[in-house]
């Protein structure tokens, strides 16, 4: 059993061991996490996602440096980094290489980097990532940077976990059609165009800006007679749209740190926006409710399955194979005559 007191007092070895127990989903890990739960809810969770090779790890490195050595008027924050890389679907093994880009952070006791393998999960995170994040939160890390698996178009779990989601793009990856597809770009709170020293960066920026213009029709103002008179767009402006967050686009060069402090400012602005509009509490509620629903389902199913006799299951399954029952009828049959909870 990992001591809760040691985690709260910042013991790094105990924390590292607890993270393994959470990853392996042991009963010990679950119990400790439950005890730590009252101490969570203080960290700002920042997700970093984007296609492989866009520079997510290097950007996380720069952001962590920014939080450790902020501009003069701010105090340094403790930073935890959770970096997820894919597991092999064949061997279950993984090569976790995100630390390679984070060597600037070595030797800093205010930083803790943990690599995670996705272990078969498909949403860009591992199923236990939220538990690992909770452990860091309870251990007093104020900023938690969560780097997803190199994501394509549909790995959007991060938006549910993080308060602020950065989607990292790089020049030369896609055109305007890619930019209007549903999926990963929609979850961005801040769009980052990394490798901004490369050719073609203007095109990438323009495509993203056009995409944003299409997705924020209520914010549009049409100009009548040139610039003489502004006319509100036909879609009615609701009071809420006044406070709507329009994802800004920030250009960065993660290998030399260009744009990192501007990005840090944008992240702070987004946090202020969330808190001012009440969105922060709404997100928190939604996230905890989703977790509750998810655990409820898993627990109910496994309890019910444990109570169900193998004989009855086999019997119904045989009828299904014989096509005497449809899959849905088989479920009804089991629920009606199986164990009652």
């Amino acid at each position, binding site marked *: 059993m990992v001591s809760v007191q040691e985690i709260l007092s910042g013991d790094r*070895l105990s924390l*590292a061991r607890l993270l393994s127990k959470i*990853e*392996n989903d042991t009963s010990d890990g679950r119990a400790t996490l439950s005890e730590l739960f009252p101490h969570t809810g203080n960290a700002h969770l920042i997700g970093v996602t984007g296609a492989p090779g866009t520079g997510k790890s290097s950007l996380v490195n720069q952001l962590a440096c920014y939080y450790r050595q902020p501009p003069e008027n701010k105090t340094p924050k403790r930073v935890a980094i959770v970096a997820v890389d894919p597991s092999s679907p064949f061997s279950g093994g993984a090569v976790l290489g995100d630390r390679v880009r984070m060597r600037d952070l*070595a*030797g800093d006791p205010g930083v803790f980097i943990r690599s995670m393998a996705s272990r078969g999960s498909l949403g860009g995170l591992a199923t236990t990532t939220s538990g690992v994040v909770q452990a860091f939160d309870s251990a007093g890390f104020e900023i938690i940077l969560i780097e997803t698996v190199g994501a394509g178009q549909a790995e959007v779990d991060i938006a549910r976990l993080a308060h602020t989601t950065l989607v990292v793009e790089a020049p030369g990856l896609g055109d305007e059609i890619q930019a209007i597809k549903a999926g990963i770009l929609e979850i961005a709170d801040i769009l980052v165009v990394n490798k901004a020293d490369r050719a073609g960066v203007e095109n990438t920026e323009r495509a993203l800006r056009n995409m944003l213009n299409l997705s924020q029709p209520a914010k549009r103002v049409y100009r009548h007679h040139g610039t003489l008179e502004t006319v509100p767009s036909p879609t009615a402006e609701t009071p809420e749209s006044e406070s709507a967050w329009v994802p800004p686009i920030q250009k960065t060069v993660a290998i030399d740190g260009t744009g990192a402090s501007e990005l840090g400012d944008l992240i702070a602005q987004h946090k202020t926006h969330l808190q001012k509009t009440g969105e922060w509490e709404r997100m928190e509620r939604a996230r905890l409710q989703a977790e509750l629903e998810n655990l409820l389902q898993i627990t109910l199913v496994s309890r019910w399955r444990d109570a169900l006799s193998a004989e009855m299951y086999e019997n119904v399954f045989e009828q299904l194979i014989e096509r005497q029952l449809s899959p849905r009828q088989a479920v009804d049959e089991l629920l009606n005559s199986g164990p009652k909870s």
Partner: protein
Amino acid sequence: MSETERKIRVLIAKPGLDGHDRGAKVVARALRDAGMEVIYTGLRQTPEMIAEAALQEDVDVVGLSILSGAHMALAPRVVELINANGQDHVQIFLGGIIPDEDIGKLEEIGVSGIYGPGTLMDEIVGDIRKGVLGEKAK
């Protein structure tokens, strides 16, 4: 709910100044294919960086690749730091060009396996499994 099968976690690191990382990458890949989770740290790591990474990642095994000839300076320092962090259960192995006369001394200070050119991957995988599972049984 069944508890997920425990994964063996390995840190592969290159301490010192030589830039030959092909061997380290081949071993990382082979361990991946054997179902292990391999944390790869890249080139030019100091012993302090390696020990810190081993702690944060809570690894079972640390593999060092050294082809610079500085193994008698680097390996003992890594062993010392990892033990000082309270991770004396961690298995440490070494790959690279290691002269025969140094092997005994390295084993004495706690390096559990030394693998030169021509080592079969199965041998490394087998030794790690045996070491970690033996450690678990203790």
